[in-house]
């Protein structure tokens, strides 16, 4: 049986080996880990700074920041999920230091954005070209709605212009009985 220390030693070695394998031998379903993707995000503490937020609020900030290890998760989720990710714990430490330095949630996110660029945000900021991202689906839906409305009004005009011929069709006894039942029910209600 392995000790915990041996287990983690083996895990670390296997991780390094996985990194060294040629591309063709990469396991499926696992993203390539970008160990060198971490960049320090540091700011001097504000004068007389105290921790600016609760743990819950700090976690919420980390949910807004994209881990740079190559996964698709945010920092909080990655660091509390991925056993082997070296990037999200480092980014978490930076968040902790900024919190201790008295920075607000938006200031912390902006600091990360300044170092990594927009890709560090879980969603593109609502500025400039990114508005195209947010608005295009609704614009497309609006265009679709106009097209549908136009088509319906055109089809309705056809109906108004050409009333459908009235055809007298004898009903079956069963249909006549159901019809009479329905009329009787309507009369009673």
């Amino acid at each position: 049986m392995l000790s915990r220390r041996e287990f983690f030693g083996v895990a670390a070695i296997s991780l390094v080996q996985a990194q060294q394998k040629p591309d063709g031998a990469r396991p499926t379903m696992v993203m390539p880990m970008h160990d060198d993707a971490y960049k320090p995000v540091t700011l001097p503490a504000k004068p007389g700074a105290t921790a600016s937020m609760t743990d819950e609020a700090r976690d919420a900030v980390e949910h807004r920041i994209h881990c740079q290890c190559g996964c698709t998760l945010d920092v909080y989720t990655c660091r509390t999920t991925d056993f082997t990710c070296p990037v999200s714990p480092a980014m978490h430490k930076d968040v902790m230091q900024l919190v201790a330095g008295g920075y607000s949630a938006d200031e912390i996110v902006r600091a990360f954005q300044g170092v990594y660029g927009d890709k560090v945000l879980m969603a593109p900021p609502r500025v400039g070209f990114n508005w195209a991202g947010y608005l295009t689906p609704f614009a497309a839906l609006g265009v679709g709605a106009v097209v549908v409305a136009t088509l319906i009004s055109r089809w309705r005009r056809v109906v108004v212009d050409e009333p459908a011929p009235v055809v007298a069709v004898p009903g079956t006894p069963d249909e006549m009985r159901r019809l009479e039942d329905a009329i009787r029910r309507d009369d009673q209600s």
Partner: protein
Amino acid sequence: VILVGELSLWVALLVAAWATITSFAGGALRRTDLVASGERAIYATWAFVVLASAGLWTALITHDFSLRYVASFTSANLPFVYTLTAFWAGQAGSMLFWCLILSTYTAIAVFTNRHQNRVLMPYVAGTLGAITLFFLATMCFGQSPFERLDWIPADGRGLNPQLQNPGMAIHPPNLYLGYVATAVPFAFAIAALITRRLDGEWLAAVRRWSLVSWFFLTVGITLGMWWAYVELGWGGYWAWDPVENASLLPWLTGTAFLHSIMIQEKRGMLRKWNVTLVVTTFLLAILGTFITRSGVISSVHSFAQSPVGNWFAALLGICVAVTAYLVATRLKDLEANAELESMVSREAAFLYNNLLLVGIAFSVLWGTLFPILSEAVRGSKITVGPPFFNAVNVPLGLLLLGLTGVGPLIAWRRASVANLQRQFAVPVFGGVATLALLLASGMRQPSAVAAYALAGFVATTILQEFYKGIGARRRMHGESIPIAFVRLVARNRRRYGGYIVHAGVVILFCAFAGLAFKRENDVTLKAGESFQTTDPYGHQWRFVSEGLSVDTKLNRRIIAIGLKPTRDGKPMPLIESEKRQYFDSQNQDTFEPATVVGIQEGLRQDVYVVLAGVVNDDTAEVRITFNPLVWWVWYGGMIMAIGGLIVMWPQAGRRKESGYAAVMETAGVR
């Protein structure tokens, strides 16, 4: 058998080429001998693909590590069931699996249409043969599952631990069954366009295939969500990952088609739109495959980057070009006598439903591709994650949910004010009462409140429909409620099966809205230490750590933590979470450590525990999450699938309509 399998792949390639050429030629030249030859070649292609598949399965079972594929995805100590499922674990094997399903579907389509749709069938067989040919070519000239190594390793690398999960054993086959089934309606659409027979004939032939596709995609997506939830350990089931999105796209357009097909069946309208939807659904399935296999978009689910992605890009391009040409040259044939009496009618409701479903599909596709577009335009990378997709899709999803309740209440052709009042009174009351209850109970999250209120409205609509139907049967036939329910559904499978699907949708939305109340705790615990917190329902929980333990089993080393929880002081079952390091038969480690999540399941909420790390050898970093209503996602998915099954189940011996109904049927106004 392995050699036979490898040779079969090449023979299948040649036979599929023959099937394609003779089928198209037979159709164009009206030569029945060529058409018959093409159909026989379709059956032969299927047989050779089965042989090739048997060859790969044999190689996997016998651990023939001289094959690169076997060495890459299995090891001698891999459990037997996962040795079998390794067939579709990698790129080349999954291509063969896709080909196996496609050739089987093709053979079934040709066989079941041997006495019908004879004008269309040469082109259907030709199109499906061409697609099969494409897949065989990717294996013969791209990545072959039978590629041999220069040397024979003592053992293989094993299967990724994340794939060693029952959900993963059955989730990919279901998705493939769904994806591939979109090819048959596509082939019929191409055949209808080529032959200019664009009336209802081809639609009748493809409806069941579209339902098959929809059913398997529904099951596959639900299983995929379940697998992600229990296996990946990040605490959710849907991350708007590009590969997840890729499976959702054909489902959305396929759902739109299953609604719009009713308008063409009943009113002869929407010919162009239905052709477009069928083609789009297939193209989105191919696009999804391209995304998964090209490496063009980052995803946790992607296969390793390979040149096969370029093949799919080419297939996509060819399909778009051919379809665009055919539609453009047949616009006149696609004209229909479109008439719509009112904007407030069932037909109009279906149009709004289609608009929303396609709108959501577009927004998902747009969000998936936006990082590429943004990088091309601005030169810098961005991340488009869940906050983006939620911001765009939640409002659209809520609109769609509302429409799910509105559609069944509106009459065909034209709804009168009296009809609307009578139909809407109870469901609107149901929605308003739900809203009042939620607000009175203090719920304030806008999207969750809206989702539950709309769910109340739609659920009441469905109940009202069943109540009326059952009531009518009881009055007419004097049946008991259970008998009336069963017969109502059995004799009106499309309608009431559809309502059951809607019920599943309502449950799904309620479960999705539960995420708004998720609570996460990130804690560090030594043996004997405890952590207290409150769940979303206000219950007090205390978790006591039983400490870390280390163990070795079959093909893995395990480090685990046990948490002893109490709820409001009452002891609850132990929750354990593990990290596993897998190794092969040579005791060599394979892959990265994998997570095994500890889940205490419940109808109201799951307690979800993940061992996230270990500090100083004796302290566990644990994430404890309360996930409300998650199990309703699986139930909702299952109910949807059951509804779909009811809708597509063959209805034998249906009574022929007579009298008024028969006349209206003949006039196309059923």
